């Protein structure tokens, strides 16, 4: 009996050591001497890397807009596990990645491990970047190493136990990281496959548009179901969409390249920098991504159902001669606040997309419309004339709740938005 027990303990210890050894299998990679990127890399490769890095939105996270030091990191990312600060990825030798070899860079991008062999947190989407081709990876490295080095150390992460132990991510990677290379789907067109490669890899669209589990990993069975990220709702792109008019490839191209489509509205919030960067990609790539995204929704509504929603949208547009009126005093307060502020532009014959067609008004969450009321719309490069002023300081929280309630009832037949007071109070507090 004793011997069996001893055996079990021994096996346990060996297993533990083996597991630890496995988790600690990444060696530190040798630092490289500072390189002169202009000598090292072809300028066309660097230019490709610049466009790819833009499309991958590297600078969106690796820049703290309050400081404006591009790629030097320091942006706080609020996660359920604590606050992460993005890292300095400029080629600064002391504080950035100036001593990283291409091998170290590629390992970080594909396996989520830094040059020292330390695990990186999966807020960095290496679970998508792992799909990037060698050629694109080389271009990204060439571009990043060509940046102006910035000597800046971002703040320390604020994570509780056990999330502050980086080794725990070995388990996360074991469960959720698939480092197999990207493979085209032979049953699909080249255009579709190009879109799939860009959206699934470097573009990491799912990073926002797919809900995550309790451990912060995307849930594959809910791919593109829509999710709440950083106080915004990243809408469903699959059959779960609540969009009134189906997103065709052309509508998506309009939205992704110009930032605006006549049947859906203007891009806003965290999508804005993405649209601005897409602007720099070859146009064919924009069409390819649109082709892929369009295919995520195989079950389209009938033309009659869409026509009905379009007719509903026209019928519900605000008519200054004959504004709506409601018996409910809360909704009527919303009508009055809308009349004061919103109806100057959102009205029959105006230049805005009918509110009942906009994706934001039809979303299951009020977050995006609320954010837009607070901060306005600062549209992307291709849709400058679709800006909207900020009203957060001009309206009380009660006014904003009234407008949101009214907008949902007036412009949709969908269920009312919930928790309005809570989300408005939270927004105000952090505003």
């Amino acid at each position, binding site marked *: 009996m004793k011997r069996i027990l001893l055996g079990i303990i021994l096996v346990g210890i060996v297993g533990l050591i083996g597991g630890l050894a496995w988790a600690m299998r990444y060696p530190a990679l040798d630092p490289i001497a500072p390189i002169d990127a202009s000598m090292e890399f072809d300028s066309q490769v660097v230019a490709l890397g610049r466009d790819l890095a833009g499309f991958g939105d590297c600078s969106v996270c690796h820049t703290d807009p309050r400081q404006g030091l591009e790629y030097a990191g320091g942006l706080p990312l609020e996660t359920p596990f604590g606050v992460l600060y993005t890292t300095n990825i400029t080629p600064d030798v002391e504080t950035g990645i100036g001593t990283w070899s291409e091998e170290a860079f590629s390992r970080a991008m594909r396996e989520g491990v830094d040059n020292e062999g330390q695990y990186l947190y999966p807020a960095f989407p290496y679970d998508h970047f792992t799909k990037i081709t060698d050629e694109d990876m080389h271009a990204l490295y060439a571009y990043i190493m060509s940046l102006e080095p910035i000597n800046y150390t971002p703040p320390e992460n604020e994570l509780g136990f056990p999330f502050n132990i980086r080794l725990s991510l070995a388990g996360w990677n074991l469960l959720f990281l698939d480092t197999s290379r990207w493979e085209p789907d032979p049953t699909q067109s080249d255009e579709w496959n190009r879109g799939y490669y860009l959206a699934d890899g470097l573009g990491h669209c799912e990073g926002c548009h797919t809900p995550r589990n309790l451990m912060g990993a995307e849930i594959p069975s809910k791919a593109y179901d829509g999710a709440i990220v950083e106080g915004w709702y990243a809408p469903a792109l699959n059959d779960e969409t609540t969009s009134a008019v189906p997103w065709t490839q052309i509508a998506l191209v309009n939205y992704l390249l110009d930032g605006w489509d006549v049947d859906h509205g203007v891009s806003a919030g965290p999508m804005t920098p993405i649209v601005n960067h897409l602007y720099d990609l070859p146009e064919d790539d924009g069409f390819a991504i649109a082709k892929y995204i369009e295919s995520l929704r195989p079950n389209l509504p009938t033309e009659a159902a869409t026509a009905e929603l379009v007719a509903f949208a026209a019928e519900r547009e605000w008519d200054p001669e004959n504004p709506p009126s409601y018996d409910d005093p809360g909704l009527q307060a919303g009508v009055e606040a809308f009349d004061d502020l919103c109806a*100057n532009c959102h009205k029959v014959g105006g230049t805005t997309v009918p509110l009942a067609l906009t994706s934001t008004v039809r979303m299951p969450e009020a977050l995006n419309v609320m954010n837009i009321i607070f901060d306005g719309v*600062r549209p992307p490069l291709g849709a400058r004339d679709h800006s909207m002023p900020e*009203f*957060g300081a001009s*309206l009380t929280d009660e006014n904003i709740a009234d407008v949101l309630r009214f907008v949902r009832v007036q412009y949709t037949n969908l269920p009312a938005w919930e928790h309005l007071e809570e989300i408005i109070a939270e927004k105000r507090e952090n505003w």
Partner: protein
Amino acid sequence: MALTLTVNGTSHVVDVEAESPLLWVIRDTIGLTGTKFGCGIAKCGACTVHIDGRAAKSCTTKVSAAVGKSITTIEGLSPDSTHPLQVAWTELDTPQCGYCQSGQIMAAAALLSKRANPSDFDIDTEMADNICRCGTYTKIRAAIHRAAEIAAQ
């Protein structure tokens, strides 16, 4: 209706309708005329002031929504016109006719409080709702960059 407003750190008791646009209370009742009327529908930005540090179009803000908050107008941006934006504006001769400029400066001040070192793109997008009929946009952009430089010194 007697309302108490705090404008540029000074408390004012004003007898106005709760529905009155803040702009007219600031200009006509309190007598601070640096803030201008342009379009009246929050599209031109001439009437931009700060409410609790955030830019707001005072033409479409009801005075009742500003009660209990700290309102800043162009007159209160600095006690002696030494705000980095005012220095940069003077240095680069930014205004032409000047009508929109107090709104421009207030919008720029709100931008700089969020982004200490804004890019051209940040400036163009954040200032999109402040219109200048003389077309001083390039000078405004340069002056905001200059102000960021002065503030960093």
